């Protein structure tokens, strides 16, 4: 059947399968190197389930950052999830018992698949979105756990594999850049972050950068909208 949500969810999630396995393994290895084993990798991928934050968390935990700083960094790094939720409010309406899990598992990659579903039928759409969320979550946990297990047994030098996180963001940035004619928000984000990095230093630049980005986006609202 053409509209089979199970088949479609699995097929659409295949690019995420490969991406999450690579990034998950990278994360597991980095975590392992910092002295935290497979149990931590499993717990973090199951409960936090946010790639960029998990990578950032390794540094935070290794530096024994204070818990309020951990909360604040999570808030800043994951603030974008607020906006994913906003666009799924209508699509997830009426999903019933599946809904809390679908919201919990709304990562960048899951969002990129679920926000474009063409299912007219609400039940089929909810099942599809639920399955995509579940499949992606399974891939991520599998990748992270595999990374921890491989990391401790790997016979060769894995130094530099953490660059996969940078590569992911650069790829998403490039993909977004190619997908729009409005480059002002991206340029504002780049400029604000770079200036704040120079001015405030690498440990304190994220929060001022977020504030400046919000203000800058507010100011350019009319210009960005007029370009449409």
């Amino acid at each position, binding site marked *: 059947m053409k509209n089979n949500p199970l088949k479609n969810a699995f097929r659409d999630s295949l690019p995420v399968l490969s991406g999450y396995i690579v990034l998950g393994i990278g994360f597991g290895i980095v975590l392992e190197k910092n002295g*935290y084993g497979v149990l931590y990798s499993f717990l973090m991928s199951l409960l936090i389930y946010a790639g960029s934050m998990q990578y950032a968390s390794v540094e935070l935990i290794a530096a024994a950052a204070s818990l309020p700083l951990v909360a604040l960094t999570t*808030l800043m790094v994951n603030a974008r999830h607020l906006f994913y939720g906003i666009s799924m409010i209508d699509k997830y309406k009426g999903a019933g018992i599946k809904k809390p899990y679908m919201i919990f598992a709304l990562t960048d990659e899951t969002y990129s698949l679920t926000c474009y579903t063409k299912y007219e039928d609400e039940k089929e759409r909810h099942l599809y979105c639920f399955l995509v969320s579940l499949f992606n979550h399974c891939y991520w946990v599998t990748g992270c756990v595999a990374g921890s297990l491989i990391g401790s047994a790997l016979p060769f030098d894995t130094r530099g594999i953490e660059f996969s996180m940078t*590569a992911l963001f650069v790829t998403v940035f490039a993909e977004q850049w190619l997908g729009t004619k409005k480059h002002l928000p991206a340029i504002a984000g780049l400029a604000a*972050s770079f200036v704040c990095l120079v001015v405030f230093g690498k440990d304190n630049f994220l929060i001022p950068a977020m504030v400046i980005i919000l203000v800058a986006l507010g100011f350019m*609202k009319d210009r960005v909208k007029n370009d449409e």
Partner: protein
Amino acid sequence: MMNSTYALSAILIMAAVTALLRFIPFLVMGNRKTPAYVEYLGKVLPYAVMAMLVVYCLKGVDFTVAPFGVCEFISVGVVVGIHVWKRNTLLSIVLGTLCYMLLIRIM
């Protein structure tokens, strides 16, 4: 093994804050229509935030010490180039990472 109570607390806090951020729009907006300004931010923030995350990843690069961040910037260039060329997320990530792992060994 480091202090496991601390690590577990940190993990639970990160999980709670992340889940909170994902749930807030659904809790706050409920059945109301999304305000136009929030909708606008939802559209443009991803572009700016992704740029910020790229800078965040490269924040540790030291331009005053050899090799002056050359490995990072060549590898970022490779990722961008391959992505513009092939538009394949996985390919861009894998080749960019391999390039970086190679460069830091030879430079």
